C-alpha cells in the first residue's frame, strides 16, 4: 500500500473542503438547527410538546446530520467526477490500487460526518437550552455507535454515488433520502410506531433507524430505545455490506 499517495489524496480532499468551508458548514448545519429550533423550542414553549422531547430530538438530529453529511460528502463529488468531465481520472491514475481511492473517499466522508456530529451536538444543545437531559454514561459504547454511524454514512455515500447518474440526483433525494429521514426514527423513537405495526417492522430495513436509536440509547438511556448492542451489531453488518457494495460499484464504474 502506498501511504504517501493515500495521504496526498486525503490532503487534496481536505484542501477542497477547507476552501468550501463556509458553504459546507451552512449546508450541513442550517437545516438541523432550524429543526431543533422549531421542534425543540417553538413547539415545546407553546406547550404542544413536552419538555422531555428535547432529549429525544437531539440524538436523532445528530444521527441524521451525520448520515446526510457523510452521504453528501462522498456521493455528490463522485457523481460529478464520474460524469462527462471525468475529473476523477487523474486520481484513478495515481500509483495505488484504485480501491484505495474508494477507501480514501470513505475515510474522508467519515471525517466529515464526525465533524458534523461534533458541531451539531453542542450547537443543538445550545439552541435547545436547559433541560435536554443527555448523559454520557457509556462513552465507549457511544463512541462505537458514532463511528459505526459515520462509516454507514460515507460507505452509503460511496454506494449511492457510484449507482446514481447526474440526472437522477433529484430522484435520489425524493426516493431514497427523504423516506430514509422520515422513517429513520429521527424525530420520534422507534417505539412511537407501535400503533403502525407494519411500518414499525418495515422501518427496521432503514439503517438510519439504528443510527438514531443507537445514539438515543447511549445518550438518553432512560427513554425507550432498541437494545444498543443489537443496534451496534446491525450497524456493523450494514457498514460491511455497504463497503463491499460501494467498492464493487466503484471498481465497475472506474474501469472500462
Amino acid at each position, binding site marked *: 500500500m*502506498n501511504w*504517501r*499517495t493515500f495521504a*496526498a*489524496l486525503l*490532503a*487534496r480532499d481536505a*484542501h*477542497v473542503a477547507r*476552501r468550501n468551508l463556509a458553504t459546507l458548514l451552512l449546508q450541513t448545519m442550517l437545516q438541523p438547527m432550524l429543526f431543533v429550533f422549531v421542534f425543540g423550542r417553538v413547539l415545546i414553549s407553546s406547550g404542544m410538546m413536552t419538555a422531555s422531547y428535547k432529549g429525544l430530538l437531539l440524538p436523532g438530529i445528530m444521527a441524521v446530520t451525520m448520515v446526510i453529511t457523510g452521504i453528501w460528502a462522498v456521493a455528490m*463529488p463522485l457523481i460529478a467526477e464520474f460524469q*462527462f*468531465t*471525468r*475529473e*476523477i*481520472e*487523474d*486520481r*484513478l*491514475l*495515481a*500509483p*495505488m*490500487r484504485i480501491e484505495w481511492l474508494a477507501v480514501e473517499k470513505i475515510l474522508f466522508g467519515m471525517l466529515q460526518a464526525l465533524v458534523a456530529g461534533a458541531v451539531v451536538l453542542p450547537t443543538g444543545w445550545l439552541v435547545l437550552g436547559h433541560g435536554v437531559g443527555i448523559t454520557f454514561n457509556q462513552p465507549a459504547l457511544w463512541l462505537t455507535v458514532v463511528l459505526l454511524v459515520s462509516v454507514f454514512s460515507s460507505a452509503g455515500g460511496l454506494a449511492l454515488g457510484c449507482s446514481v447518474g447526474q440526472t437522477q440526483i433529484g430522484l435520489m433525494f425524493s426516493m431514497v433520502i427523504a423516506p430514509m429521514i422520515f422513517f429513520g426514527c429521527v424525530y420520534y423513537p422507534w417505539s412511537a410506531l407501535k400503533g403502525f405495526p407494519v411500518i414499525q417492522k418495515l422501518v427496521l430495513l432503514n439503517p438510519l433507524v439504528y443510527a438514531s436509536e443507537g445514539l438515543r440509547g447511549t445518550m438518553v438511556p432512560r427513554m425507550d430505545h432498541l437494545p444498543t448492542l443489537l443496534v451496534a451489531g446491525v450497524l456493523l453488518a450494514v457498514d460491511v455490506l455497504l463497503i463491499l457494495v460501494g467498492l464493487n460499484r466503484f471498481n465497475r*464504474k*472506474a*474501469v*472500462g
Partner: protein
Amino acid sequence: MGAGVRTEGLRKVYTSPPPLAAGGSFAPALGKRGAKPKKAFQVVALDGVSLEIRAGEIFGLLGPNGAGKSTTLGILTTRVRPTEGHAWIGDYNVWQQQVHAKRLIGVVQQRPNLDFALTAREILSFHAAYYGVAPADRGRRSAELLERFQLTDRAHEMVRGFSGGMMQRLAIARAMMHDPQVLFLDEPSTGLDPQTRLLLWEIIREYNRSGRTVMLSTHNMEEADALCHRIAIIDHGHVIALGTPYELKHSIPGGYLLRLKFSHHSPEVVERLRQLPGVTEVQIHGAGAEGGQGVQGAQGAQGDGVDLYADRGGSLIREIVAVLAESATDLHDVHISEPSLENLFLHHTGRSLRQ
C-alpha cells in the same frame, strides 16, 4: 531513460456502452437487432492488437474515430480492462502489476479532465504529490511547466473558466509533472489552434529527446507524419500497417501526387498524361472537370488542372511539360506531394481518413 511498451493479442469487446475512459466514440454497434436485450450491445473495439514500442520512441496510433486507438491507450494506462491479451509497460504487466506500471506512465486523455475544485498550480502540485514528489520539487516543476505551456499568468485561477486549449495544455503539463518514462497522449492536438499545436509538437519532441517514450493517438495524418518515429495504422480494431512514416508511404505504388494547373486541357491531353510511364491515375478538377470526377481533398483548386497519381515525382515533370507543349497548353503551376498516409489508408481500406 524511457521504458518500452508492448501489447500481445489485445482484444476488447464492450458489452455495455463504453465509459469515457475509452474515449467514448465508436463505430456503430455490431450487435444484431432482435437479439435478446441483454446481448443487444456488443462492440468489438480491438481484435488482436500486438505492438512493440521501443524505449525512447515517439509512436503513433493513426486511424479514424472508433478505430480502437483510445481503447488501446485505455488498456495500456490501466483504464480499460482487456477482454483478452496482455500489455506491458517496461517489464511490468499492466494488469498484474498495475501500481508499478502506473508509476512509469503519464496520461493525457482525449477530453481534458482537470480537477475543477483546484487552481491550475494546485492541479500540478497535487498531481505530483500523488506520485510522491517532494514539496520543493513540486513547486519548482509546476512553475517550470506553467511557464513552458504559457499558463503562468493564470496559475492561481480555478480552471473552470479556462478555454479548451488552455485546459488541454494544462492536462499535458500535468501528465509531465512526475516526469514519467512513458507519456501517453490521446488525440493531443484536438481543439488546439495551429500555433498551440506547433508548441505542443515542440514540447513532445523535447520531452522525447530526454529519452522518454511517447505514444500518441491521432486521426490527423500530418501530425502522425510530422511527429512520430513509427506509426501503426489501425482500423476496426486491427493494425493494418506498421512502420516509419517513410516506409508506410512508400509501401504502396503510385504514392506521389502531382497537382498540375494549366491554361486549358482537352481529353486527348489527359489521355496522353495517363499513358506516361509510372502514372497510375489521373483525376480532372477545376472548370474542365466532368460530372462526378471531382478531386478528393482538392481544396483551393482553381482553373483547369489535373491530379496525377504516379510512382515517381519530379522526374515526371519533363515528360509532362513535353506533352503539354505538343498540344500548345501552358503549364501554370505544379505541386508535388510525397506519398502520404492518407493515400496509404485509402489504399488499405478504400476509405479516406478524413471521412
